[in-house]
């Protein structure tokens, strides 16, 4: 049986102060407002996002994207990148720029606003789970409500895999988070709508890895 890997309990970082994502997974039954995390959010004066018409020229007028989801981004409240996956061509320099811009745009949005921001002619759908923002960039005419569901699908699968996932899991086992993502999206499109199936596939591959160690 594959052992679901957890960061070792002898690890110095105590997990107790990291809120568990699952405990704060908003139930979609109560609507789409991101649930306010337990920690007090400092009421900083929000800097308004710049209007997209003033976006710099180099990323504008790019050729049409290759995928429904152009990229996936997970950033922490402090703006640290926890996971990035790019389904459209972006150079390293462009990626850094994109991350910086989006962090500025999204991290400063208040909790009651809608989960979509317009950015450079694209839409970025984001949702906050505890200390992490899950963001997915789509084209202007894609179905953003569906992408919200895809994000939630991803989070629930992560939760099932890691067992009450929290940010630390995604830091120390980032490569496993990527393996999970690769079973959910390929080329920016959804691959599997059954959480059970994804879990089964990951478990089978994990056991192949365990078997090879012996």
């Amino acid at each position: 049986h594959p052992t679901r890997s957890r960061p070792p309990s002898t690890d110095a970082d105590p997990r107790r102060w990291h809120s568990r994502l699952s405990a704060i997974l908003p139930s979609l039954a109560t609507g789409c407002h991101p649930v306010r995390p337990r920690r007090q959010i400092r009421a900083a004066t929000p800097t308004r996002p710049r209007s997209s018409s003033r976006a710099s020229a180099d990323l504008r007028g790019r050729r049409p994207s290759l995928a429904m989801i152009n990229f996936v981004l997970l950033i922490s409240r402090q703006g640290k990148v926890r996971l990035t996956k790019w389904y459209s061509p972006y150079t390293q320099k462009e990626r850094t720029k994109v991350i910086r811009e989006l962090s500025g745009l999204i991290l400063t949005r208040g909790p009651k606003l809608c989960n979509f921001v317009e950015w450079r002619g694209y839409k970025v759908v984001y949702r906050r789970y505890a200390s992490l923002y899950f963001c997915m960039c789509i084209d202007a005419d894609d179905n953003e409500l569906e992408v919200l569901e895809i994000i939630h699908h991803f989070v629930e699968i992560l939760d099932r895999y890691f067992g009450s996932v929290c940010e630390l899991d995604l830091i120390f086992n980032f490569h496993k988070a990527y393996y999970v993502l690769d079973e959910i999206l390929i080329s920016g499109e959804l691959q599997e709508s059954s959480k059970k199936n994804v879990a089964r596939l990951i478990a089978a591959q994990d056991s192949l890895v365990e078997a090879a160690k012996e």
Partner: protein
Amino acid sequence: RRRDSPPPPPQDSVERIVEDAAMDLSLNPFSSGTRLRDMIRAIRASKTAAEERAVVRRECAAIRAAISDNDQDYRHRNMAKLMFIHMLGYPTHFGQMECLKLIAASGFPEKRIGYLGLTLLLDERQEVLMLVTNSLKQDLNHSNQFIVGLALCALGNICSAEMARDLAPEVERLLQTRDPNTKKKAALCSIRIVRKVPDLAENFMGSAASLLKEKHHGVLISVVQLCTELCKASREALEYLRKHSVEGLVRILRDVSNSSYAPEYDIAGITDPFLHIRVLRLMRTLGQGDADCSEHVNDILAQVATKTESNKNAGNAILYECVETIMGIEATSGLRVLAINILGRFLSNRDNNIRYVALNMLMKAMAVDTLAVQRHRVTILECVKDADVSIRKRALELVYLLVNDTNVKPLTKELVDYLEVSDDDFKEDLTAKICSIVEKFSQDKLWYLDQMFKVLTLTGNFVKDDVWHALIVLISNAPELQGYSVRSLYKALQASGTQESLVRVAVWCIGEYGEMLVNNISMLDVEEPITVS
């Protein structure tokens, strides 16, 4: 430790971790260095950027040494470290060849991390990628389905046009395989291939159409998406799919819509909303401009539009797609009414997301049925004042589209009233829109002047130069209104002189028509005399 030596550094500090590693090395000169999790801990424990850079530099040096020694044992771990370092933003080019070596290894664990490294550290523009083509070809023919899966996933995420051409035959073959998990990956990989090389679309259309008979949901959602892509890439594929797949799609949608509770696919009481949405999207592509196809899907669209629960996001996502499809095809008027009604409901939903989406859809609905959208004008105006900036912007754009001769005056009044209380960030957009509207409908010169004066007073600083130039031109060409203009501007100036454009226009007017001001010349009925000294 001797009593006079310094106390050991705290558990988690960089010094401690480095000390531990140094101890490791000194005891075992063949030690491979830090474990992945220790490197991550060291990086997290860094208190300054310089400390972090030092840790990363040390690790990179160790990895480089291992690479040049062609170290086998820790290649796997070093790749993981490289990926983490890459995520932090540091350059990792020296590790790219390691991906290739891992992929070429025979074991699953090596291939797994090798392929992951490939998709993270490289992008399609790099020539190194071409070197993987051979390994990919072998892996696509592997007996282990998981290895085939790894190859398909990597290809689907990162291939270039040449690789797509090279490996398309393998992927085509894999569409016929028995394992559904491989099939679904092959279908998605085919999407990328077709996007990169649209000429190949016709190769896939036969398989895609026949795969619509599958039962496995993963395969279905991938194949339906592939069909949508094929239609976009090739006219021939579009015609083929119109002929061969519409019945099948209607059946799929009907089955999943009528299905009873299926725990594996259930989201908020709906079975597989993702499948619903993808089929709806394909129906839109097929039905666009095709009356025959549109007729076939009419009933099922009506069913989905009326039956789907709209109290959860999943249901609303389906309804959204359904409305988009109805608007996009040659729908009956009954169906269109249904669609606009759904939008109306969305518009009054408490949920910000739903309102935002409704505004978006209403903009598209303008092309289809302007009158229906006009009916929601009041609610849309309310959205212009919403707390959410995304909603405000959408609503404003929509209002701009809704303006016509009959409603321009009340609409403008609402907008100007709001201008007074709106946020500074929004003032600019709002001002521009108001000026644009007013100029478009400026046949009634008196009204035009009134609006412009108000705007100049409230947000003159945001008024563009060519706008107030045009205002001046109009005043100078309308002698009967010059007196009125100069008096109104004078009053405005007295009330508030902070807006620069207002001051400019006012001063110009007073300079040109000062006489009229002082002597109350050519007064209009609506004016009262003022004394100016």
